[in-house]
C-alpha cells in the first residue's frame, strides 16, 4: 500500500471518529418522554412531587404495579388512582371492587368519572381555571379546576366538596371499605400542586378515611399497552399464527431460492416489412389525401387489367367499357356501365369525402378480387 492511500485511510478513520462523537453528543440530548400522571414523572404533568413529598415525610407510600390482590388480608390500605384508564378487563375490575369491599379505601382522581364504579356525571361549565369550592363544613377554598364534569351523587353518597355547578368529591361506602371519587386529578400534578389551595384539599380528602399505607396505582397506567395482545386474543389463534409464520418462512425458502441461471427480462424486437407503408398510410390519413390514395388504387387496378386481361393502361375509363363487359362476370351490364361512368367523375373531382373514399375503395377492390383471385 503506498503512502497516499494510507494517508487517505487515516483521514477517513479520523473523520468517522469525529463524526461519531459529534453525533453522539448531539443525538443524546433528546428529551425523555413521560406519560401524564405517572408517579415517577418529573414533567409538569407528572405527580412525582407529591410522591416524593410523602416519602420524605415518612408516610408509608408504595407504587402498585399490579391489580390489587383480592385475597390480601391486610386491611386499611389506601389505593390512590390518578387519572386511571377505564378498566376494560373484567377480572381486574373485580379485583379492584373486592379490594374495596374487604375494608380498604380507594381514592380516584379522574377528570371524567363516568363509568368508574357506577358513578354518574353531568356537565358543569366554568370559564375560569380556578373555582371556589366549599367543603362539607361550609369553608371555602380556591382550587384549580380543568374539567368540565361534575359528579351526580347518589342518595347514599356523602358530598365532600362541591362548587356552584355540582359535586366535585364524593364518598361512598362499598362493603366494609370506602370509595372517594374526585374529578380533579390536576391538584396532584407537579404543575398545579402548589397553586391555590390544591394541596390543602388533597390532604383534607386523604384525612377522611382510615389508612396505614398509601398505594399509588401504576397498573392502570401501563396495562393497556403491554399485556393486551396476550389477553385479547385466544391462545389457539396465537399459536396458529406462530405456526403460520414458521410455515411461511419455510415456504419462502422453498419458493424464493433461485435455482438456475439469472434470467434478465428482455424485449424481443421484431421488425416487419410493412413498417414504411403503415407510416406512409398514417401520413396520408392525417393529411386527408383521399384523392391521391384513390388514384393509386385505381391505377393499380388498371395495371392488373393490363397484366391479366390485356386491357390497355393508357386508355380512358370510358374506352375500356366494352372490353370490361366481355371480361367481368361478377357484375351485370348496368353495374359495369355505371361503375365506369362514376369512377371517371370521382377521379376527376378535386375533393373526395371520407365516405366516398371508403365506398370507392370497396368498389375498386371488388373488381381487383375478380382480376387477381378469379
Amino acid at each position, binding site marked *: 500500500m503506498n503512502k497516499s492511500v494510507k494517508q487517505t485511510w487515516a483521514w477517513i478513520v479520523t473523520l468517522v471518529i469525529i463524526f461519531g462523537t459529534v453525533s453522539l453528543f448531539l443525538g443524546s440530548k433528546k428529551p425523555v418522554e413521560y406519560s401524564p400522571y405517572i408517579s415517577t414523572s418529573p414533567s409538569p404533568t407528572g405527580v412525582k412531587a407529591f410522591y416524593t413529598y410523602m416519602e420524605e415525610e415518612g408516610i408509608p407510600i408504595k407504587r402498585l404495579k399490579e391489580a390489587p390482590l383480592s385475597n390480601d388480608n391486610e386491611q386499611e390500605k389506601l389505593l390512590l388512582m390518578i387519572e386511571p384508564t377505564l378498566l376494560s378487563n373484567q377480572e381486574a375490575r373485580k379485583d379492584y371492587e373486592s379490594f374495596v369491599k374487604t375494608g380498604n379505601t380507594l381514592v380516584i382522581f379522574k377528570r371524567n368519572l363516568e363509568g368508574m364504579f357506577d358513578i354518574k356525571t353531568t356537565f358543569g361549565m366554568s370559564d375560569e381555571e380556578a373555582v371556589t369550592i366549599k367543603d362539607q363544613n361550609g369553608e371555602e377554598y380556591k382550587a384549580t379546576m380543568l374539567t368540565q364534569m361534575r359528579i351526580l351523587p347518589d342518595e347514599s353518597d356523602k358530598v365532600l366538596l362541591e362548587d356552584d355547578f355540582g359535586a366535585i368529591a364524593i364518598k361512598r361506602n362499598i362493603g366494609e371499605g370506602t370509595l372517594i371519587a374526585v374529578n380533579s386529578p390536576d391538584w396532584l400534578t407537579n404543575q398545579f400542586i402548589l397553586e391555590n389551595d390544591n394541596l390543602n384539599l388533597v390532604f383534607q380528602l386523604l384525612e377522611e378515611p382510615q389508612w396505614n399505607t398509601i398505594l399509588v396505582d401504576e397498573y392502570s397506567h401501563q396495562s393497556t399497552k403491554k399485556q393486551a395482545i396476550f389477553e385479547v386474543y385466544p*391462545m*389457539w389463534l396465537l*399459536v*396458529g399464527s*406462530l*405456526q*403460520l409464520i*414458521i*410455515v411461511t418462512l*419455510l*415456504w419462502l*425458502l*422453498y419458493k424464493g*431460492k*433461485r*435455482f*438456475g*441461471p439469472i*434470467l*434478465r427480462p*428482455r424485449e424481443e424486437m*421484431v*421488425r*416487419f*416489412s*410493412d*413498417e*414504411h*407503408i*403503415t407510416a*406512409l*398510410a*398514417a401520413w*396520408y*390519413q392525417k393529411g386527408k389525401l383521399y384523392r*391521391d*390514395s*384513390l388514384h*393509386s*388504387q385505381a*391505377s*393499380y387496378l388498371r*395495371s392488373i387489367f393490363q397484366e391479366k386481361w390485356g386491357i390497355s393502361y393508357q386508355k380512358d375509363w370510358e374506352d375500356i367499357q366494352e372490353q370490361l363487359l366481355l371480361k367481368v362476370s361478377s357484375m351485370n351490364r348496368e353495374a359495369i356501365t355505371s361503375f365506369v361512368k362514376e369512377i371517371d367523375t370521382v377521379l376527376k373531382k378535386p375533393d373526395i369525402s*371520407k365516405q366516398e*373514399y*371508403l365506398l370507392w*375503395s*370497396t368498389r375498386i*377492390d371488388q373488381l*381487383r378480387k375478380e382480376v*387477381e*383471385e378469379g
Partner: protein
Amino acid sequence: MTKLLKSLSARFLFLDRGIVPTKRLLIGYISISICITLFTFIGFSWLQIFMINGLILLASLLDLRSIPKRSDIQVTRSIPANLERGLNYIVNLQVQNNSNLSCHIQLIDGMPQSFISNFPIEGVVPGRGTVELTYPIIAPVRGKYLLEKMFIRYQSSLGLWQKQMAVQVSDAIRVIPDLSETKRYLEDAQHFLMHEGMKIRKQKSGVGEFAQIRNYVVGDDPRKINWRQTAKLQTVMTNQYEPEHGKHVMILIDCGRTMGAELRHTNRLEKAIEASLTVAAAALGNGDYVGIIAFSKEVTVFVPPDKGMAQLQKILDAVYDIKVDAAESNYLQAMNYLQTVQKKRGLILLFSDIQAFLQEEQTLFYFEGIKRRHMFMLVTIKDELLVNRARQDPTSLNRAMVKGIAQEQIMHRKRQKTKWEKQGFILVEAKEDRLATAAVSHYIHIMNQGLL
C-alpha cells in the same frame, strides 16, 4: 472493490448453493402445525410449543446426513460444438455419484436465455453409480456462446431437504445457420433443383471446356461428332463439353436495417445466409472460386475467393455470427470495397432487400460501372406482407389507406424493376422457402450459358 464486494456478498447470500425444504416437508409441516394448534385446546404452554417446533425442525435437518456431499456429485456434459439454428439436438449429461448414498437429482443447465429447452430434468443416481440424463435443445439465435454453470438440487430418498449447488462445466458452442438446404444440395443436386430442373439442362451449345467423348445419341449436334474417333471405333462418337470451371463468384450479404424484417419463420438475413451458403456449396462443388462479403454501414466480413470444399468451412466460420445492423446499408461503400478486392471478372450475387436497394437513384448510375466489369445479380425475398396488405379488405379508413399505399409501392417496384432489367441487371425475387433453390438455379443457368 466492487468485485471484492460481489464475491463477499455471494458468500454471505449462499449464491447458487444452500439448502431448501422440499414440498414434502412443507406439506408435513402444515399438517403438524394444524395438530399443534388443535392441541392448544387441551392446554399447551408456550415453552412446550416452542420446544415441539424446534425439535421437529432439528429432526428434519437430520435428513441432511443421508444426502451425499457436494463434492461427491460430478457432472459432465456432452454437447455438439456446432448447433444449427432452429434444429433439435440432444444433450447428454453424465452424473456420477461417488458416495454410498443414493439420491434424487434435479438439474438445470445454464443455457443462454434464448435457447429453448425443458428444465429441470430429473433422475435418480444410485450410490457409487452413474446415470445418464438427456434433454432436447433448440438454439434459435445464431452466435457464439459459452456454457458455464450447471445448477443441481438433490435430495435423499426420505426427501425432506434438498441441497443445492452450481458446478462449473464449461463448453463453448457455436450456433451456425441452418445448413439443411446446403446438405440437401450436396447430397443430390438434381433432386434439390427438381422444380427448376429445366434450366439446368439448357446449355449453350459449343461453349465451355471439352469434357469427354461419348457415343452419339439422337438429338446431338452433328457438328460435334468426333470423326477421328468414329473412324477408329466404327461407331459414331461425339464430343461433350461442359461449362468452364474456375470462375469467380462473389457473394454479398446485406446486413442492414431492412434485412431484419420478419418472415413467416425467421428474418430475411437468416434466409439470405442460408441461401448464400447453398450457392457457395454449389459453386465450390463446381470448381469455382467463391468469396463472401457481409456489409451494412460498412464491410464487416470479407473472405477472399478460393476454391475447394474447405472454403465452405471458412465462409461458415466467417458469417455464422453476423447480425442485423440497426443502420441503413451503404451499397456504394460495399461496391467500392468489392472493386478493390475483386479485380477479375466474376459473378456478383447480392442478397438484399429490393425496397432499400431500389430506393437510391444514384445506385443505378454507379452500378453501371460494376456491370462493365462483373456480372451482377440481385437476389431478394418476395415481400409477401406487402402483397397481403395490397389485398386486404378496405373495411376501415386506415386499412383502405394502407391498401392504397401498398398497391402504389407494388407498382413503383415493378417500374423500378423493369428499369433495372432494361439496363441488363438480373433481379431475382423468390418466396422465402425457395430463395436458396432460386439462387442456385440462376447461378447454374449463368454458368451453363457461359455468360461469364
